[in-house]
């Protein structure tokens, strides 16, 4: 194992975050605060409790997941797309590193950023509503698992994309709708019956439900199913990455 290479890539990526601190951290914090103002304070005051939790409190896990998901994908996809775009990827390809090491470096850094960001958003939320986390370790586990899984997914998008439109397309056209329809702002049980069934095909529902369970012990689906689905998606991403490096898809001629 070439740990020195993993470390080099990881630190390089983290350094990029510090340089773009404003984009990386400040803007998600601002947008989360806006959600609280709009949904929590303005609209939430007119909605009664959901499953015994005030509406403002109810949306916190969903909001954190929303940011972690989108930021994981955008960080990781950009992290690998950019060197491909400017050509500096040649160095990584010519270095004595295995694909596992490359993935650990890039995805590790992207996931780290997302976890830090998720915690910052959680802190921000704590300023608006009282928070009580029932299972902090599970909460952290869900956070890390989601960050890793979707960073890996973003990594795949970054390799697949050969222009900026494609890089933006998947997050914009697929991920954002799925997250908004994934129960961030409502309980799936509140939906009328055909929609409820349809929603269960949305993997994000399971992520948010599991994450919310770690906070309030309320969930739309069983937490075990949530963990299972997330691991399943992680496994699919891993297989795709393995295939990418085996064939050199979009990386090597």
């Amino acid at each position: 194992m070439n740990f020195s290479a993993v470390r080099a890539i990881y630190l390089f990526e983290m350094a990029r975050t510090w340089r773009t601190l404003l984009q990386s951290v400040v803007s998600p914090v601002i947008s989360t605060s806006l959600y609280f103002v709009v949904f929590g304070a303005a609209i939430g005051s007119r909605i009664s409790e959901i499953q015994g939790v005030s509406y403002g409190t109810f949306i916190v896990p969903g909001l954190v997941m929303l940011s972690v998901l989108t930021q994981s994908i955008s960080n990781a996809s950009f992290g690998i797309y950019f060197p491909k775009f400017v050509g500096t990827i040649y160095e990584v390809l010519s270095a004595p590193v295995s694909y596992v090491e490359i993935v650990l470096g890039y995805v590790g850094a992207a996931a780290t950023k997302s976890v830090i960001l998720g915690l910052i958003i959680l802190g921000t939320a704590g300023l608006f509503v009282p928070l009580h986390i029932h299972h902090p370790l599970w909460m952290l586990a869900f956070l890390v698992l989601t960050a890793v899984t979707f960073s890996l997914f973003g990594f795949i998008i970054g390799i697949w994309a050969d222009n900026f439109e494609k890089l933006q397309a998947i997050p914009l056209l697929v991920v954002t709708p799925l997250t908004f329809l994934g129960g961030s702002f409502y309980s799936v049980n509140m939906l009328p019956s055909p929609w409820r069934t349809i929603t269960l095909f949305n993997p994000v529902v399971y992520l948010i439900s599991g994450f919310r369970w770690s906070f309030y012990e309320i969930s739309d689906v069983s937490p075990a199913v949530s963990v299972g689905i997330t691991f399943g998606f992680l496994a699919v991403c891993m297989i795709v990455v393995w295939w990418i490096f085996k064939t050199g898809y979009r990386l090597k001629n």
Partner: protein
Amino acid sequence: MQPIISVSNLTKTYASGFKALNGINLDIQRGEIFALLGPNGAGKTTLISIICGIANLSAGKVEVGGHDINADYRVARSLIGLVPQELHTDAFESVWATVSFSRGLFGKPKNPAHIEKVLKDLSLWDKKDNKIITLSGGMKRRVMIAKALSHEPQILFLDEPTAGVDVELRKGMWEVVRQLRENGVTVILTTHYIEEAEEMADRIGVINKGEIILVEEKAKLMQKLGRKQLKLHLQGRLDTLPATLAPYHLELTEDGKELIYTYDTQSERTGITTLLSDLRDADIRFKDLSTTQSSLEEIFVNLVRTGA
């Protein structure tokens, strides 16, 4: 001695179906400077990309230091430093950071003293804290060399190192390469400047249309293919050549003032002595004479033309 790079029957067909390399066989000896000479599109960059792991090969085998580049890629790649043809650099990192990154990527423990030496050798030391984006093109090229040398490779690939570089920088680059060879580094450079190959290389390989046409020691190549021309500047003008001089295949310039005799430096008898006495017999007088040796450029153009 075992070659440090051994390429056998290497073929590369791009996804487009284009065959960029066609059965390349090439051995590079340890410690030499090898120039790969060929026109644009000959396949130089493709060959280098495969050896360095940036492109996949379609058929054949490549060994670096005795290690297969696919089965044993870790060892093979750790021996190589690559400076690609295009200027691909980071933008916002400092020179120091980007060069240190390269060393880490190649799995070498930190060694600030080595990086300092590399930067000093390449006259980049006073720029070490500058962001790369602020550097000139020539300096960026040197940053890329510094990155390639950061992990102390035994082999350095320079893909068209002086393309688009001004004369002074080019001379500087040649100096760097000579220094590297003194330190035992094997250098493989590609170029389409004949001058560069002529100036620096120990051996020259000529590649055209994906095939190696010839590999030869530079001196031998010059000798083997180098023909000399003897130019006689006549005292008067000559309209036609006397029949007695026909065996020499002389060439008379249009203005009738010069006679050109082409001869082979390798042959036992160049024929110069008899030519001069036959000229005297024909009463042709000259006021001056000069000889010129054909340059690598002419040799090259000839080769590519006949090889095509």
